[in-house]
């Protein structure tokens, strides 16, 4: 009964410890990945917007808009960049990557604003949009939309990998705990059975192999045997004294 309780307490301890580790590392992981990825994507998007803005000047002033479209089509192939649009100095969309058309929210919004904004576009998802002026804004602006769902997906993947690792460690820990508890409990059980057998008296079928052990269990077994033999001798002495009397 006591061993069972010890076993339960050990398992509870193992689960509690791993739960605490999982929770704390997951929270830390979410925070770290979210912060770092968001910062990194935003920074990359700003760089891309600036690169397009710098490259667009010559195209806007001297070349056909198909060259500009070709340029943004190459950038939108980059993972996490979901849309790009370029407006001229009058706010007209001169190149974009939207299908089937420019979303209402963007069409009616401030097209010359280059401040980073968060957008939720129906049917498309959630985005962080960064902007960059072309020729200090007198030739238009470039806007790059970064998919925040992708960041969420990356966080999920990172946490998933962590949970997977911790689960494996948990299973191994529990199996190890069970093995160790069993290892400790088995000699105690043998000792108990030996003591019970001794108590039943001579020719009781007690397992004498315990007496050969040189650990605490062996010492206790020998002690039980010693007491058992003492009690038995004392009993025989009392019987013979009674017969004599």
């Amino acid at each position, binding site marked *: 009964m006591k061993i069972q309780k010890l076993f339960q307490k050990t398992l509870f301890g193992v689960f509690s410890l791993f739960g605490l580790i999982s929770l704390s590392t997951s929270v830390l992981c979410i925070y770290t990945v979210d912060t770092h990825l968001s910062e990194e994507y935003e920074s990359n998007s700003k760089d891309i917007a600036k690169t397009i803005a710098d490259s667009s000047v010559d195209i806007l002033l001297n070349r056909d808009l198909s*060259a500009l479209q*070709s340029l943004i089509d190459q950038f939108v192939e980059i993972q996490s960049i979901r849309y790009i649009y370029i407006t001229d100095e009058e706010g007209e969309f001169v190149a974009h990557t939207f299908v*089937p*058309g420019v979303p209402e929210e963007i069409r009616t919004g401030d097209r010359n604003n280059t401040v980073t904004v968060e957008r939720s576009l129906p049917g498309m998802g959630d985005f962080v949009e960064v902007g960059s002026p072309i020729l200090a804004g007198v030739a238009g602006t470039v806007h790059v939309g970064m998919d925040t769902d992708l960041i969420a997906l990356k966080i999920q993947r990172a946490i998933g990998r962590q949970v997977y690792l911790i689960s494996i460690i948990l299973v191994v820990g529990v199996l190890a705990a069970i093995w160790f508890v069993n290892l400790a409990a088995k000699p105690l059980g043998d000792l108990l059975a030996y003591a019970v057998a001794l108590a039943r008296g001579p020719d009781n079928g007690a397992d004498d192999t315990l007496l050969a052990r040189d650990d605490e269990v062996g010492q206790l077994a020998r002690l039980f045997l010693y007491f058992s033999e003492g009690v038995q001798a004392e009993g025989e002495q009392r019987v013979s004294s009674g017969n004599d009397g």
Partner: protein
Amino acid sequence: MRTITRRALLRSGLAWCAATPWLKPLRADADTDAGQPAPQMAPGVTDTEIVLGMSAAFSGPSRGLGIELYRGATAYFDHVNEQGGIAGRNVILKTYDDGYQPAPSVRNTLKLMLQDQVFLLFGYVGTPTVTRVLPMLKKFQDRNFFLFFPFTGAQPQREPPYGDFAFNLRSSYRQETAGLVDNFVRINRKRIAVFYQADAYGRSGWAGVRRALKHYGRQIAGEATYRRGTKFTASMRRQVEILKASQPEAVICIGSYAACAAFVRDAVNLGLQVPIANLSFVGSENLLKLLTHWALTEERGNSEQYTRFLVNSQVVPSYEEASMPAIQEYRDLMRRYNPQPPIELLKEPYLPSEHSFVSLEGFIDAKLMVEILRRLGDRPERSQLQQAVFTVQDFDLGIDERASFGPDRRQGLQQVYYTVVDEGRFVLLDNWEDRFA
């Protein structure tokens, strides 16, 4: 004294024979035994062949464009080769499939330029593909690579910084869209919307429409896009709804046949009853085939309801105009050779059109290409190509317009034709008012 045995002589002779082929390239610049310079051919040219490189769509929803262009060009090249070739050399068209996608077209071009070492590039299909290839021509300008007669009317290969590396025969999208807008405005259809492919091709046409409307102090009434590679089975309902909301009096489509046919189908089904124009790139016969087949299989009755509002601009005359010598020749040679697409590039079955505007364009491209190669003489050199092209002045191709080139004129033809569907085939539109007013 050492004696020379017959066996030693034989061994030396064999060794010399074995070494000779390896020595040949090293001796290329050396004088021959006769004291004459050894002939050194330009890359892509041998005693028997001139190899041209072509990357085009032979697979995917736009495969009809690459295949028909190839068929038309091959009909003429086969004819020339049968007649003895150019200075005894057969014209060979080395082809690769890019599926109308930019990345494969860049890879194919690299292969054609560096590995296959073709003499020149010919008959590329599409704006998004060609615009990515142009910088490579500039990169390898020291090797004098030129792109001849791409199947696109976009501006990048017509103007700096890449205009010097390409020669165009067909009219530009700018000319096609300007013509369409002029005619629509003339018949009082001034609210013009644009349905276009979301890439460089679509943008090129969109810019052409915008530019033409600006001339009349107007703007594009509405616009909707689709992704390149969209199939006929896709729904265009959303695009039609967007355009319908702008209440257009005409729609100009800048796309390829599968997506444009899907748009026309849904537009008619949703009650958008206005003229719908398509540019030459669309592939008119394939568009018509899809609409006709759909109308028949869906038991929608006569396909006429889907085609009566169509007006397609073309950059070559109608293949029905057999009075023109080139058209008659095209029809004869297409019948005689019936060229098939390269079997190794075909990933899905394709039923070729007997005649089409695209194959006719390929045929006329090949006709002028052969003329230019002939003007290079017996020893064609890449470095002489540009000069040879500039000698083409008022050249009679056998159609109703003569081709001319020059340092400031890198597009041979300027004419745009307008066609409508009549009795299941495209015919020239002679009266816009009667048809659409």
